[in-house]
Every structure is written in C-alpha cells, then in structure tokens.
C-alpha cells in the first residue's frame, strides 16, 4: 500500500503565488479527480508535484511513502514511482519511441537496483500495451511525439503509464483535445492500468465525459490555488448543472 501526501503546499512562479495551501492524500488504488475553473492552478499543481524547475515551493511538503520529495529532481520523483501524463507532451525529434521507452524504463529499473530489460521481452510487452491503446506497430519507429495528432500524443502518454507502472499517476487534462473515440480509448486504457496495478490516480479534468470511464472515488474542486470542496461523484453532477460559481462563493463566505 502506497501513499502520496501533499500537505499545505504553497508554490510560486515568477514571484506570483499560484498554490495557496493544497492538502491532499492519495492511497494506492484510489482515483481522485480535481475540477475547477481556468487559472485555478490545476496544471501548476501537476507541474509542482513532478518538480518543474520553473516553480518554487514556498511552503508545505510532498511525501511519497513517507519520503519527502519536495526538494527532489523530476527524475528522482519518477524513480520513486510518480508519473505525470502531460497535457502538452514534448516532441523529441530523431529519438525513436521504442528507444525512448527502453532507456526510460531502464533508468527506472536501475534506480531500484534491477537489471535492464531484455529487448525481446520488452518488445513483446510494448506490443501488448500498444494493442490496448490501438497503436499500429510502426508507432515504435516514429520520433517521440513528432507529427503526432493530439489523440496520439495522449494515447502515447497512457502507453508510457502502462510501461513504467508508477505508484501514482497524475493525469493532466488527459481529455483535452480528444474526440469521442480517442477519449474512450485513453480513458478505458488508463482505468484498466490503474485497476491492474492498483496505482493511485490524480486526474485533472474540465469535463464530465471522461468520468464516465474513470470513476473517481473522490472529487475535489479547486479555485484560486486552493481546494475548496471535496466530495464524491454527485459533486460532478452539481458542477455540470450549475458551474463552479456556487462553490467559490460558499468557500469565500466561509473564510470571510
């Protein structure tokens, strides 16, 4: 059983405070979703959790299985079992997807003192996962994210999740830019992996549709750098019906 504990997290970028005290605990096997208006800091939270150098943590802590990762480099966090599915995955021209996956996997294994993957077995594993995410075989030869459609990029992120088997997966607006069919593949794929490996999931989303496939155990509403409400699936229906306004007003009334 693993645990990701975020305690009173404050973070700034270019001297502007974006996260104003986020607290959240995610256990293995739990699916949390965070919804909220644009500019609430949802994407910032994802980047701060993963250790993007542009952000400065000014208060609070992040602990994974009791180990503080607040000061750690992104690769160290990944090695401890954290994974981020990017909203805008980066292109790495000239690097074949298969090669990238293998090198990354080996880095994660090495950190645990394990030997590198055996190529034939690895290829077999890749092909298996690729099938689930509806990738054609030649995908492995393509340069990382170069020339990929929006849907392909997102499916590829989930493929990585399948290959790296993290303890906790942060899915940053995995549904943005996806058509109905792509969304189904991505969401079902992510859900299946989560169930299979019991990894904890933190899903950032705007829309309800993805939640038809990835059923959250906890729903959080974020606004202006804080989590203002936590509940269950019924919260989502409320948001869909009346928007965030109500929750924002409620929270400011409470603090006033």
């Amino acid at each position, binding site marked *: 059983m693993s645990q990701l504990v975020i305690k009173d997290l404050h973070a700034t970028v270019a001297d502007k405070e974006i996260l104003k005290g986020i607290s959240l605990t995610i256990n293995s096997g739990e699916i949390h979703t965070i919804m909220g208006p644009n500019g609430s800091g949802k994407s910032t939270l994802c980047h701060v959790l*993963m*250790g*993007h*150098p*542009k952000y400065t943590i000014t208060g609070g802590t992040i602990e994974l299985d009791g180990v503080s990762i607040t000061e750690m*480099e*992104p*690769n160290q*966090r*990944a*090695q401890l079992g954290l*994974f*981020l599915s*990017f909203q805008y*995955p*980066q*292109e*790495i*021209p*000239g*690097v074949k997807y298969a090669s*990238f996956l293998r*090198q*990354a996997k080996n*880095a*994660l294994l090495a*950190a645990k003192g394990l030997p590198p993957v055996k190529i034939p077995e690895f290829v077999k594993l890749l092909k298996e996962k690729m099938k689930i995410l509806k990738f054609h075989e030649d995908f492995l030869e393509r*340069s*990382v994210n170069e020339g990929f459609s929006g849907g392909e990029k997102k499916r590829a992120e989930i493929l*990585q999740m399948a290959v*790296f088997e993290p303890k906790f997966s942060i899915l940053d607006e995995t549904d943005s830019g996806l058509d109905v069919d792509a969304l189904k593949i991505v969401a079902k794929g992510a859900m299946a992996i989560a169930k299979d490996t019991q990894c904890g999931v933190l899903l950032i989303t705007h829309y309800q549709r993805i939640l038809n496939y990835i059923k959250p155990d906890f729903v959080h509403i974020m606004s202006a750098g804080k989590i203002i409400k936590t509940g269950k699936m019924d919260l989502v229906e409320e948001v869909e019906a009346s928007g965030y306004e109500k929750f924002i007003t409620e929270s400011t009334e409470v603090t006033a």
Partner: protein
Amino acid sequence: MATKQQKEITQQLADYRYGFHTEEKYEFKSEKGLTEEIVRMISAHKKEPEWMLDFRLKAYKIYREKPMPTWGSSYLNDINFEDIYYYIKPGGNKAKSWDDVPDEIKNTFEKLGVPEAERKFLSGVGAQFESETIYHSLQKHLEEKGVIFVDTDTAVQKYPDLVRKYFATVVPPRDNKLAALNSAVWSGGSFVYIPKGVHVELPLQAYFRINAENAGQFERTLIIAEEGSSVHYTEGCTAPIYTTNSLHSAVVEIVVHKDARVQYTTVQNWSRNVYNLVTKRAIAHENATMMWLDCNIGSKLTMKYPSIYLRGKGARGEILSIAMANKGQHQDAGGKIIHLAPDTSSVINAKSLSLRGGRTSYRGLLQVAPGAERSRSRVTCDALLLDTESSTDTYPTMQIDENNVAIAHEATVTKISEEQLFYLMSRGLSEQEASNMIVNGFLAPLIKEFPMEYALELNRLIALEMEGSVG
C-alpha cells in the same frame, strides 16, 4: 570482421613503407621551418622521380607568395609557420613516454574501450602493432580485381603514369596557401584506383596508415574511380589521435568517372592542440555520384569544406557534415557544390553542436553555372547550442546563374528547451541522460549514414564530450 582485418592490413602497408622495422638509410637533421633545402631533402629521402621534385619546388614557391586567408578563424593568427617541423623531427613526432600523453586522451581511450596496444599506437608511444596474415589474402583479393590501394609514396614509385595523370588536377597548388604547402611537403596518404566496372564491397580504411612518425601531418590522398565502379573509403576513428604536431594540412583529390560512385567517410578526432586545415575536393563526371560524410569532433581549429564539382550531366553530389565544438574549439566546416552541367543534383546537410563556449560555423557555397539547367539542390544547416556561452554562425553563399533550376536552403538554430528536459527527466532520466538523448536525436539522421561500428562509437564519443570527462 573485415574492419579489424583491414585495420591490420593497412597497418602492414604502413609498416612496410615507412620502415618501422627497417633501418633508415638516410640520416639528416631536420630543423624547424621550411626552406627549399628541406623540400629537396624530403624528396630525396623518399627517392622520388624528378617530376615530383619539380612539382614540390614549384609548389613551394607558390606557398611563399600566397597570403594566408583572412577569413575563417582568428586562431589562424596563432600558427607560427616557422616554428613547425615539416618532416620527421628528431625523436619523432610521438610522445616520449606514456606519461607524456595528456590525461584527457588516456581517459577517452578508457571510456571508449580502446584496446591497450592500440592506445600506445594512437598516442605515438608504441611503434609496434600486431597484425595477422589476413593482410595477404585481402591484398590478393584486391589485386585480383585490379584494385590498387597503397600509400601515395608507394604509388609515385609503382604507378607513376597513373599518378601523373591525376595528381594535382583536382586541387592545384595555386588553389590556396595550405594546398601549396601540402603540395610542397606532402607525405603519406592513400592512393586508390578502382578499375572500370569494379565494385569494392568492403570499405577501405586508412585507419592505421596514420604513421606515428609524421602522424598524418601533410597527407595527400588521391582516389580514382573508373567508369561504373564504386568504393567506400573511410578515414579516422573516434579514438583521439594524439600528436605533438600542431599543424595538419591534408589534401584529398577524388575523380569519379561516368556512372561511378565514391563515398568518403571521415571521423576526425585530433587532439586539442591541432590546427586542422584541409582541402578536399572531388570531380563527378556524367551520372556519377560523390558523397562526403564528414564528422569533426577533435582539433583546436578545423577549417574544412569538402567540395564537389558536378562536371558531367546527371551527376550527383552529397555532403553530410557533423561538427561538434567543445570548450576552446572552433569547427569551421561545411561544403561546396558547384553545378557545371545540366540535370545535376546535390544535397548539403550540415548539423553542428556547440557546448561550453565552443564555436561552430557553417561555411558553404552552392553555385550553379550558366547552362546547368534543371539542376536541383537542397542545403540544410541546423545548429544546436547547448548553453549560453557557446556560439554558432552560418556563412552560406548561393551563386545561381541559371534560371531553370530548383534550389532550396534552410537553416535553424535551436537550444535544448527546458520543457524537453523536464519531460524526459520526469520519465526517470537524469539531466545528463536527457541532454544526451536530445543530442542523439538531433544528430540521428546523419549518424545513421555512417557504417554501424562508427555510428555506435560516435554516439559514445559524443556522450563523453558532453559529460565533460574529455577535454
């Protein structure tokens, strides 16, 4: 496989010619600087025919008259031509002992896994290099096909007519000061002749002909591919070559006859004290194909622009260039292609990498002469800067004197983005590993053109350079 054999074979050739195992008959004290006297001594030492001595003397006069180029690099001003040995210096050009060999060189050998015996040879400390009798069967194999592959000194003696027919027809001494210098004092280099219709499947390697004595200082290479023939010639290696000689000025001339194909691959990793000023040029006749694959990683300064004159209708030229400049280095590289006939085509694809204050420059010429109708050319130069200290410049020249042509030129300058690094690091890769991956990807389209064993070694060497454990 054939590669190791060929290395050994060419070493045998060098041994034989340079008398590693035989006594020197002539004794003379070589001094620094260049005089007509020294040019004469070089020729006499090699027992050359009159016509070659004449050629050297005429070239020497031209060398004295011509000015140094005023462009290229300010490092040129540091070369003191009078403070150089132009032939064998007392004690040879090798390091006196293994202890004298710079640490950075030793470290690279270690990291690239260069075998013990090779290390000593490459640093000029040892003279002996083990060879096998496979040499004889490869030589026999080439002989049967009528292929000639010897060092140029031998060629002058054994094949004078052939040599006289082509020598200095592609790069005349008047071409530039360094070519004139080479013409006066040249020593060593390869002479390759491929008869009509013959295809040499194995790459011919110059690898171990780099004689410890003069460490390829003023090599002169001449390659002739007769009609319909083909050959791939490779020179250099990723292991650094240490030499106390600081000036290297080679000349390479290539003639590709009708329907023939020549590929010339170079991996240059001279030690960081070397000024490497090279003139490489090829003439491609009707429907011929010439490809230069040039990789420059070593030396303090390299000025090198492999060129192709597309003289025959339908000829094709390709120049693929990789340049990497680390701290204190300047790689001034590129290429020149001159379209002189109709229906000719060319590609120049240059990629450069600068780090820790290193400087790369692309210097190129794309020229289309009047009458070279329906010529097509694409020039691409991409530079990658790894930090804010480093620099890169591009000096492309296009001279198009014909309307009915299709010419394209693209240039990009990029740096490793913070977002790319973060993305890769978030997958468990260290910053170093992530940078290496990005650089590998950048160079990949060109590296894949190299023979596989070179490609693997190159990737390792580039990773080492980036780590900073070299130099």
